[in-house]
Structures are given as structure tokens and as C-alpha cells.
């Protein structure tokens, strides 16, 4: 697609519109329930400390990969609601393997990633297979698989996890020191570090962009998403694509936990971060399934989230306010995208006719 200022303007219009709407609605809510509006915004909008900034980036990394996993499905109009379950079961399996430390250092990390992608892909593949062969909606099957994976992981953790001396939790074996990644000192003055596997997120983003936009496979994916019937007629084997897309989505979902696992957690335990898959859905929608859009959305999301502690401490407002802001932005943005897209389509149709009219004056209506 050629660059055009109008197009860019329209692309940015929707998210900006949504953020403004979210700002207004949230303010109204605050006024309605009598919370301090000014203080809330000044707290939320104050510049984060370096340490918090690092944390924003770190959870942004996690969310980014989650959103890409979701976006792969979305590109084909597949709703992989099960990223959460795929991520969980993959994280557990990877932690189990990595904890054994069969391979030294970086190789161990690579092995864990391969295992995570395999397990995540397999888990998503079940839903894909059910859809293709049995016609079960992936929305329902992935939701069921989420619960099932939670159960299996719970059982696995009880069977293979260990309880450290004096601890009240259960964890998998901690990974050897040689496989622990120290992090990148990207932010000056911060005592903590950005996950080394920021690199992984960037690679995932680039590969995603490249495959979708520059390969034949990606074209098939997009074609299927835009019109299944046209894709079929063009030679795309949709069932096969569904299976592949689900597996790819699950494989990427499997990677979600990797940056934090090797950068901070070092083992899988009861304090595992839940719900990332659902956050990924929100971010993918917000970022319009675009690798760059998703990056901004992921940072926005995690920035809001990190602001919630300040909200409690400085404004005395429930941190749940942040959920409202996130939710309203999301709802506003999906509506705004629809409105803008419709507007754009009309504009283009008009333009086509106008240009043709001037080209062939006799073609105009009498």
C-alpha cells in the first residue's frame, strides 16, 4: 500500500478518538461516584519512575507476544480465546523441561522455547482439529480447553512440583543459574532491567509482519480472513489453513511466558501470572492486529496497569478504575475503527466515481 497522508490520518483517528472518549467517560464515572477527578488524572499521567518504566516495558513484552498470538488467529477471523490456556500449559511444560537443565546455558533456553511452542501449538491444535473435522466453534472449544489446561497443570504441579523448605507454595525445579538471563540495562537509573528476551518479542513481531505481509502463506491467511469463499476459490485449503493458523497462534502463545520466565521467575509456581491471554485479545484489538499498533497498545495497557498502585497510594481510588479505562478504550476503539472504516470506504467510492467522471464525462448520469 502506498503511503498517503489521508490514510495515515484515518488510521490514527480511531485510536485517538477512542482515547479521548475513554478519558471523557472515565471522568464522568469519577464525577458520578464522587472520586477526585483531577488527582486521578494527575496521578495516572505523572511520569513513571525509571524502575516502574522498566516494569512497564517488561509486562509490555509479555503482552506483546500474547497479542501477536491472538492476532494470528484474528487475521483469519479465528477467535483464539484459548491463548491463556495454551500459554499456561506451555509455560508449565517449558519450566518442567528447563528446570532439568539437561542442556547448558543458552541451549537450555532454546530447548525450553521449542518445548513451549510445541506444547502451545499442540494445545491450540486440538481446537483447530475439532473445528476442522467436527465443526466445533473454536470460541467454545478454546474456552473449555482453558479450564482443562488449568486442571492439568494443577495436577502436574502437584505431581512434579516441589515445595521449597519453609515455603507454602509449590514450584517446578528452578532453572540452573547459567540459563537465567540478567536483563538489559536499557533505562538509566533503574535498579532493575528489561528482560533480555525483549529480543524474542521483537523477533516475533518482525516474523509475524513478514509472514503475513510478504509471504504467500500470509496472503492466504489474509485472503481467508477477508473472504473465506474467495480464498477457497483461489485454491486455499481452508481447513488446513485453520489448523496451521491455530497451531501457529498456539505456538506463539507458548512463547508468552519465556521473557519473564528466564528473566525473573526461573520456575513455574502458584504465583504464575494468569489472564494474559485475555489481555492479549484486548491489545490485539486495540493495535488492529498490526505489529506496530500492537506494540503501542501493549505499552499503553501495561502503563495503565502500573499506574494503578499510584492510584491507591496517591489518590485513594480503587485500582479497578484502570480496568474501566482499559475497557472503555477497547470498546470505544472497536467502535471507532468500524465508524472510520465505513467513512473511508464511502470516501473511496466517491473518489473513484469522481475521478472516473472527470475521465469519461459521458459516463456521468444525465
Amino acid at each position, binding site marked *: 500500500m502506498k503511503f498517503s497522508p489521508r490514510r495515515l490520518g484515518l488510521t490514527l483517528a480511531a485510536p485517538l478518538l477512542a482515547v479521548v472518549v475513554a478519558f471523557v467517560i472515565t471522568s464522568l464515572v469519577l464525577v458520578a461516584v464522587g472520586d477526585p477527578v483531577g488527582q486521578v488524572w494527575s496521578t495516572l499521567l505523572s511520569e513513571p519512575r525509571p524502575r516502574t518504566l522498566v516494569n512497564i516495558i517488561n509486562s509490555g513484552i509479555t503482552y506483546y507476544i500474547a497479542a501477536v498470538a491472538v492476532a494470528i488467529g484474528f487475521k483469519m477471523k479465528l477467535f483464539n480465546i484459548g491463548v491463556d490456556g495454551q500459554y499456561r500449559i506451555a509455560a508449565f511444560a517449558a519450566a518442567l523441561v528447563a528446570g532439568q537443565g539437561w542442556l547448558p546455558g543458552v541451549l537450555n533456553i532454546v530447548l525450553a522455547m521449542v518445548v513451549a511452542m510445541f506444547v502451545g501449538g499442540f494445545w491450540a491444535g486440538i481446537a483447530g482439529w475439532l473445528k476442522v473435522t467436527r465443526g466445533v466453534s473454536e470460541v467454545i472449544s478454546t474456552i473449555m480447553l482453558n479450564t482443562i489446561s488449568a486442571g492439568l497443570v494443577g495436577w502436574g504441579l502437584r505431581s512434579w512440583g516441589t515445595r521449597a523448605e519453609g515455603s507454602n507454595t509449590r514450584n517446578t525445579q528452578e532453572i540452573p543459574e547459567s540459563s537465567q538471563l540478567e536483563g538489559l540495562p536499557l533505562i538509566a537509573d533503574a535498579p532493575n532491567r528489561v528482560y533480555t528476551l525483549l529480543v524474542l518479542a521483537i523477533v516475533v513481531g518482525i516474523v509475524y509482519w513478514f509472514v503475513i505481509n510478504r509471504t504467500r502463506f500470509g496472503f492466504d491467511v489474509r485472503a481467508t480472513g477477508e473472504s473465506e469463499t474467495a480464498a477457497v476459490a483461489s485454491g486455499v485449503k481452508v481447513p488446513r489453513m485453520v489448523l496451521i493458523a491455530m497451531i501457529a497462534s498456539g505456538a506463539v502463545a507458548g512463547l508468552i511466558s519465556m521473557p519473564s520466565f528466564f528473566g525473573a521467575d526461573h520456575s513455574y509456581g502458584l504465583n504464575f501470572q494468569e489472564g494474559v491471554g485475555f489481555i492479549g485479545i484486548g491489545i490485539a484489538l486495540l493495535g488492529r492486529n498490526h505489529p506496530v499498533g500492537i506494540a503501542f497498545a501493549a505499552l499503553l495497557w501495561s502503563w495503565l496497569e502500573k499506574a494503578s498502585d499510584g492510584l491507591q497510594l496517591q489518590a485513594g481510588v480503587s485500582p479497578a478504575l484502570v*480496568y474501566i479505562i482499559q475497557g472503555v478504550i*477497547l470498546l470505544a476503539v472497536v467502535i471507532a475503527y468500524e465508524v472510520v472504516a*465505513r467513512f473511508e470506504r464511502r470516501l473511496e467510492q466517491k473518489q473513484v466515481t469522481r475521478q472516473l467522471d472527470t475521465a469519461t464525462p459521458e459516463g456521468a448520469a444525465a
Partner: protein
Amino acid sequence: MSLSVGTEIETAPQRPARRVPFWAWPLALAALLVVLSVIRVVTGQSDIASSGTLGAALAWAMPLALAGLGGLWSERAGVINIGLEGMMILGTWGAAFGAIHGGPWMGVLGAILCGAVGGLVHALATVTFGVDHIVSGVALNIVALGVASYLAARFFGELEGGSDVQSPPLPSLPRVGIPGLGDALGSVEDKGWFFVSELAALLRAATTDLSILTVIALALIAGTWWLLWRTPFGLRVRSCGESPVAAETLGINVYVYKYIAVTASGGLAGLGGGFLAMVASNAYREDQTGGRGYIGLAAMIFGNWRPGGVLMGSGLFGYMDALQLRGGGSALHAMLLFIGVLLVAIGLWQILRRQAHVQGTVAIVVGIAVVVLWLISDSIPGEITRFAPHLTTLLVLAFASQRLRMPAANGKVYRRGEGH
């Protein structure tokens, strides 16, 4: 709408499922009771069909049934509603807020209203703005979680006995039952007679100590059937889900009916949330819904978008839930026998009647494996019993989804004047 998959979308005409005659229902129920009796006798697990289990199953089924009924309203009008979970969440908050400030019946009203607001937002996004239904639903779930959580912190945090994540105890709704019947049936149940005791247990569960909200929910299921299939209003709602363009050309304001149906959908799901807050427990709690909106949706789908089916689907879920919570591993273990035998039967049927040798053989082999598993083990690990309902859903859908037919225009974005 999500991808339909397959290359035969072009021409293969879908045979609509034939109506099940009304007498089939009691017959099926009786058959089920016989099966349960056999399992009880063979395994000695008295909890399989005790009135306690069935009563709990009924109670567990109701929130799911209400959510599923909500889904049915919405999807019959052509709007996929994956936002049921969010609407339920809003309902739990609304129930608590209403009940605290106006008594139990205000709680019921509050649940319905708050859920309906969620439905209205979904309608606004999908009907007016043409947002993809699943996208809107997912977004709504996120918003609802935030709104309920924030409002709870704001309105319950300060109250005596409440906190940011929990409301104070709510006043309870009346419970009803047919007096005297319970004890009589109970003594029959205790005799352990084949089938008779199971029947007594079922009657006992259905007639004693029910929450008034359970009765209302059952009435709503019947009422939905009557309203949607027996009144002009219902015909109009359904026409919006089958062919909104056709409805439009007959002078029907499709937007209005979609709005009504989706809002009602929210109200029903909200009431389901209210059930959780006021009947299943007696307070609002964050995360109380625990994904029941999704399960309700699943129950509706395998109930084939029909009220009776919703009841059946949610009943199955409720039963599995009740059984695993009450009996745990051993009761579910007994069910293995049932599942194994069922699989073998399905396999034989596939081979003998449908010539599907591969599927049939697979079913028989798996069935025998399940029976063997039943023989060699004596309990199922807790984690696995807890996802048994979900696994069951997945299996049921895998076996039955070809027989299901959703409303033809479900999930399609409709815009006035653009369909001709």
C-alpha cells in the same frame, strides 16, 4: 462472524433438524433414570442420583441456564453474545447493590437492570455500529469486569461487612416447595428400589426447598419458548436471526427487535449473575461468575439454540458440577462406567447403522479403555474431576455439533437498507 470452514458452503443445503415430539422428553428422562439406577446398583455409589445431588445440580444449572437463555435470545435475533460473562458480572454487582438498598426483590431487579445495561452496550456496538459480535463481546467482558470491580470497591468497600471485593451479606429470597411431599419421597428414596428411588429422588429435588429464583428461572425458560415460538413478537425476533433483510422488507424494524432481544439477553444473563450472588451464595464477590457466562453459551449451543436444549445442556453441566463437588473422585469414577458403555454403544451404532467403521472402532476401543480404567482405578484425581464438565462439553460438541443448526443470519452484521 467467525470462519465457517469447509469447501461445501456453496451448495450443500442444510437439512433443518426435525422437531423432537413432545412425548420424547419424558421418555428420554425415564431412560436416563434407568441408566443412573443401573450405575448406582453396579457401583454402589448412592450419590449418583440422590435427591441431594439432583437438587444441587438444579441449583448449579440455573445460573448457566439463565446465561444460556440470554444467549438464546440474543442469537435467535442474530447477535452472537460472548459478552454473557460480562453481563453476568454486572448482574452480580447489581444484585448486591439492589438488595442492600432495597431488599431481596430490588436485588433481583438490580441484577436484571445491570445485565440489561451490558446488553444495551453490546447492542449499541453490534447493531448500531456494526462491530464484529465476538470482538464486541470480548471487549464487553473486559469492561464489565472493570466496572463491577470498581463499583464494588466504591460502594461496598465502606460498608459494614463488605470490602473492595465483597459485598455485605445480602438478604435472602424466599424458598418454596410442596409441603409434606419431601419427607414422603425421601423415605421412598431411602429404600433404594431400582428406578423408583431415583424417580422419587428426582421428584423430591424438584419439589422441595427450591429458591423462588429457581422457579422463576424455570418459568423463564418455558416463557421464552412460548414468547419466541408462539407469539408474533417472537416470530419477529427469530426472523431477525434467520433473515433480517426479509424481515425488513415486511416492515419490521430489525434494529428495534435486535435491541430488545440483546437487551433482554443481558437482563437474563444479569439475573443469572443475581442468582449467583443471592441464591448460590449470599454476597457479591469478585470473580464469582468464574466463566459461567461462557459455559452458559456452550450449554445453549449444544442445546441447539432451543430453550429445552438450554435446560438440558445446563442441567448436564450442573449435574457434573454437583457430582464432582459433592462426591468428588469416586462418584465421577462411577460415571466412567456409564461413559464407557455409552461409547461402546455409539461405536456399535456407527458400525452397524452408518457403516462408519473407523469412527465406530475408535469409539469402541476408547469405550473399552474407559471401562478398563474404571475397573483398575478407584478414584479420579481432584484436578481432573474439576474439569470434567468442560471435557464433557468438548466431547459432546465433538460428537454432536454436526447436528446443530444455528440461526442462519447469526453473527452477520446487518445494516438497514443494504441487504437488497
